[in-house]
C-alpha cells in the first residue's frame, strides 16, 4: 500500500506567515511554550489552526514538523523504524523523533484519525517527564526545552469513535478556535486574496448564512478557507455566483436542494 509521504525535514519558517489574532491565543501559546506545556488546538476545519501554528513557529523561531494523521498512522510512522541498506540495517527517525531531537515544534493534525496506540507515545511526552520512548532503540529520548507538541482536534464530529480520550486531552493546554468574527474574517479574506472590500463583505455574509444551516441540512458551514478560495476566483474575473457555487456550495454538499439554496443565497448577497 502506498503511504503518504511524511515530512521529516526540519524547516524554519523564514517569512512571517500572515495571521490575524482572534483573542489572546498568541500570548497563551507563547506562555505554554515557555512553560513546556503541550497544546491542543480545537476547532472546525479551515478556521486557521494550521496557519496559527505556522505563525507561532515563525514567532518562536523554531522549525515546524507537521504530520497529517490518518487511520493507518502507526507508532513507527511517528517514531521511526529500521530499514535495510546494502545489507546493513539503518535506523531512520520518524518525524516525531526528529522533532524531539531538533527541538522543533511538532504539529499532529487531526489526531483522532490516528490509530489508538499512537497516543501512548505522546502521553509520556506530554507530562512533566517529557520523554519519548523509542522502543526499538531501547532509548528514552528526553525532549529539550525548545521542543513543543501541538495537536489539533475537531470537536464537531458526532462519531463516538472519533472522540479524543480524556486521558489524552487532559494533558494539554486547550485553545479553542472558531471562525473569526465578521469584521476580522473580512480583513483576512481581503489580505489573503487582495480582493475588493465589497467582495470580501459579501463572502463573509454568505459564510455566515451557510453556518446557520449547520445541523440543518449541512454538516458544517463554509470555512474561512472556502471563502478565501471563492475570493481568489472572483478576483480572477469569475462571476461571483459561479465562484461561490464551485468553491463553496459544491464543496459543502451534494444535496440538490441544498446546492440550490446556497446558490440562491449567494445570488441574494452579490
Amino acid at each position, binding site marked *: 500500500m502506498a503511504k503518504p509521504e511524511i515530512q521529516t525535514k526540519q524547516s524554519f519558517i523564514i517569512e512571517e506567515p500572515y495571521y490575524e489574532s482572534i483573542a489572546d491565543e498568541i500570548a497563551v501559546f507563547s506562555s505554554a511554550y515557555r512553560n513546556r506545556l503541550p497544546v491542543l488546538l480545537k476547532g472546525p476545519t479551515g478556521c486557521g489552526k494550521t496557519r496559527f501554528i505556522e505563525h507561532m513557529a515563525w514567532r518562536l523561531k523554531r522549525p515546524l514538523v507537521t504530520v497529517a494523521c490518518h487511520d493507518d498512522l502507526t507508532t513507527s510512522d511517528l517514531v521511526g523504524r529500521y530499514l535495510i541498506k546494502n545489507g546493513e540495517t539503518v535506523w531512520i527517525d520518524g518525524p516525531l523523533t526528529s522533532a524531539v531531537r531538533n527541538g522543533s515544534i511538532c504539529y499532529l493534525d487531526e489526531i483522532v484519525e490516528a490509530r489508538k496506540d499512537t497516543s501512548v507515545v505522546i502521553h509520556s511526552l506530554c507530562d512533566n517527564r517529557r520523554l519519548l520512548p523509542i522502543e526499538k532503540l531501547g532509548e528514552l529520548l528526553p525532549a529539550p526545552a525548545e521542543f513543543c507538541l501541538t495537536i489539533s482536534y475537531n470537536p464537531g464530529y458526532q462519531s463516538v469513535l472519533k472522540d479524543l480520550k480524556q486521558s489524552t486531552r487532559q494533558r494539554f493546554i486547550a485553545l479553542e478556535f472558531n471562525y473569526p468574527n465578521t469584521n476580522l474574517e473580512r480583513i483576512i479574506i481581503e489580505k489573503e486574496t487582495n480582493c475588493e472590500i465589497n467582495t470580501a463583505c459579501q463572502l463573509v455574509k454568505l459564510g455566515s448564512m451557510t453556518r446557520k444551516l449547520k445541523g440543518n441540512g449541512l454538516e458544517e458551514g463554509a470555512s474561512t478557507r472556502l471563502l478565501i478560495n471563492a475570493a481568489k476566483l472572483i478576483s480572477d474575473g469569475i462571476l461571483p455566483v459561479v465562484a461561490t457555487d464551485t468553491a463553496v456550495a459544491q464543496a459543502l454538499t451534494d444535496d440538490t436542494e441544498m446546492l440550490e439554496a446556497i446558490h*440562491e443565497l449567494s445570488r441574494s448577497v452579490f
Partner: protein
Amino acid sequence: MRDATIQDFLNFNLIHKDLERYAQVDDVISEITALDREQQRLICDWSELIACSNRELAAYFFFMAPNASRHMDHQNFIAWIDLTITKFKKLGLDEAMVALKDFCKFSLSSIECYPSCQFDDVCRFLHYFVRGLGGREMRVISDQSTFTDTGTLFLPSSIDLFPFAELNYTLYKLTATHLWAQTRYGTWRYSVTKKLVENCLTEEKLAVFNRLECLRIDESVRRDFPGLYREFKALGDKDLAAREHWLQWRERAGILLEPGKTAEDSFFLIDDFMEFSLPPLKYYQGEMFVDKVYEVMRERIDREKTRFQSEWQTLRVHKDAAVGEEARQDPLEELIEVIKSDENKELSDLNIQITMEGAVSNISDSQQRLISSIFQDFDGIPEEYIKSIEISRSHQEEQSQIKSSNNSQDQDLNSHKLFKYHEWDFIQQRFRKDFCTLREFLIIPDDESFVHETLKKYGGLLKSIRKTFAGVLGETRLMRRQMDGDDIDLDAIIETYADAAHGLENREYIYTRYRNHNRNVAVMFMVDMSGSTLGWVNKAERESLVLLCEALEILGDRYAIFGFSGSGNNGCEVYRIKEFEQVYDQQVQRRISGIRPKSYTRMGTAIRHLGHLLNLTHARNKLLITLSDGRPEDCDNYKGRYGIEDTRHALMEMKQSGIHTFCITIDNQAQDYLPHMYGEANYTVIDEVQKLPQKVADIYRRLTT
C-alpha cells in the same frame, strides 16, 4: 434616462464589452432612450439581473430588448424573458440566445406551458434558504392564504403566474423572502402589533399599512441583499401601470426609506395615505393577519421570557461559582448588558454580545438564537426580563414532602428489583441522597405481528438501511500490522526483517486483515414511554426500534433496549425490552410490540440506572441513546428548570464514567433545552414523526463510524 446614465449602467454591470459585439453601443443606447421611462427601467432591471448569471446573455438581451418591447405587451415581454431564463438554466447559453433572437415568433398564446411550480417541490429548498437568511428559525408550510404569523411562513400550494417554471420558482423564493423580511425587519415588533390590535384597524387601513411596510422592507432588503432586491424590482409588478403606481407611492413615502425607520413610522403614515388609490399588491406580497401574529407572538414571548431568565440565572451561577462567592441575590440587570454589534453596516446581522459585569460572556449558539429571537420582537431585551427570578425554596420542599409520604412502594417490593438513586437539586447545588427509587419491570409482550407489518411497510427503506450498514462494515479498510490476517503486510515484513537483522526481538504483527465485527460498541437505547407519547409517537418509536434491530444485527454491535417512565421520586420505572446478552428473537419482537405509553418522564433517574447497566458491560465505546418526545417532567416538582438540571447532571455523570450520550427527539421546542442538557453536538431534532424510523438508523450509523 440620459445616455450617460445608461453608459454608466453598462459599465457598472460589465456588459459594455459584450454589447459591442452585436452593435454600436451608441445606437443601442439611443434606441433605449427612445422608449418611455418605465420600459427603460424594466429593461435595465432585467439586464442587471441576467448579468449576475451570465454577462454575454445580458448584453444580448439588452441589444434585443428595445425592439422586442415595441412588439410585445408587458405580459408577453416577461414571458419571453421567462422562457429565456428557463432555457439558460436547462439547456445552456446557446439555446437561451436563440430564444432571445426569436422574439418575433414568440407569443404567449401559442406556447405550450411548462407545469406550474409546486410547493412540495420547493419546500425543502425554501426551508434551507430561509434558514440561511438568518433571524428567527421559521417553518415553511403551504396554506390557502399567503402570510406569516412570525413563527411560520404560509405560502400558496402552487404558483403559476408565469408560463415557464423558472420565474414561478423565483417568485416562490421572493414571496418567502418578503414574509421572512417582515419578521426580520420589525413589521411585527411587539409594540407595533399591540397598536394594530388595540386600534382595530379597518381593512382599508391595514391594506395601506401593508403597502407602506412593503416599501420600507424592500428598502431594507436592498441594503442587505442587493441580489434579492434586483429580483423584487424586476418581477414584482403586474404591468407597467402598477410599476408606475408603486413608484409614486415610493416617492411620497420617501421618509420610510431612510435607514432606521421602523414599522411605527409606517403606522403613523397610514392616515396620510388613505386619500390615495391603492396600488395592487406586488406579486410577491402576502396578506396580513394581525390577530394570528398576536396570538403566536404572545405564546412565544411567554416561553422565551422564562427561558431567558433560566439561562441567565445559570450563567450567573456559573460565574459566581467560578469566582468562588456565595450565590448573590443582586438583580440580573446590574450584571448584564446586551450589545448588538452593528458597528459595521455592510455586515449588519443580528450578532449579539452579552456582557456581564463588564466582561464579554461566551454564549452558546442556542442562546444566541434565543436572544436574536427576542430582539426581533422587542428590538432589545425588555427590562422585566432581566429581573432576578425567585424560586421559592420552601414551596419546593413542601411538595417533595407530600410525595414521600405517599408511600405505595411496599406493595410489590419483592417481585421486582429495587434501586436507589440520588438526584441533583440545582437550587441547593447538592445531591438529594437516595431520593429516588426505581424498579425494573418486564414489558408485557404483545403479538409480534406488529413487527412483521413494520418490516413489510418499510421494505424499501429496510433494504437501503441494510445496504448502508453493510457498507459500514465494507468500508472499514484494510488493517495493517495484525497478529493474524488474510494477507501479508509488506511494510511490516520489511520492517520486521530489518529489526531481525539488527538482532531485535521478532514481533509478528505482519499481517493485514479486513476489519469487521471488531467495532467494540455497546449501545443502550432508552425509550420514552411517558403518557405524552400516546398515539403516533409511540408507534413511530416501535417502528424505529424494529428497523434499528435489523440494522444492528448486521453490524453485530451489542445493544440493549429499555423503556422508562414512572410517577414520583419513589415510583421510577424502567421496562426491560432487550438486555445486552439477549438475542434478538420473537420474545424481543413481542416486547417491542408491547411498548405502551405509561405516565411521566423522570429522566435523570432512568439515565443513572441504564448508564449503570451499560457500565457493567465491557466495550471500548459505550453509547447511551435516548429516544424521547419532550422535556423531563414528573408529577412532583420535577419540572422545568429542576428537571432539566437534574437530567443534565445525570448526563454529566455518564460522561465522566466514559459513556457517550446522544438524544433523538421529536419535540420541536427542544432547541430550548437540549443543547444545555446534551451539549451542542449531541442531539438531533426530528421535525416529523414519520421520519423517525429512517432517521434513527441514519443517526446511529453517523454516530458510530
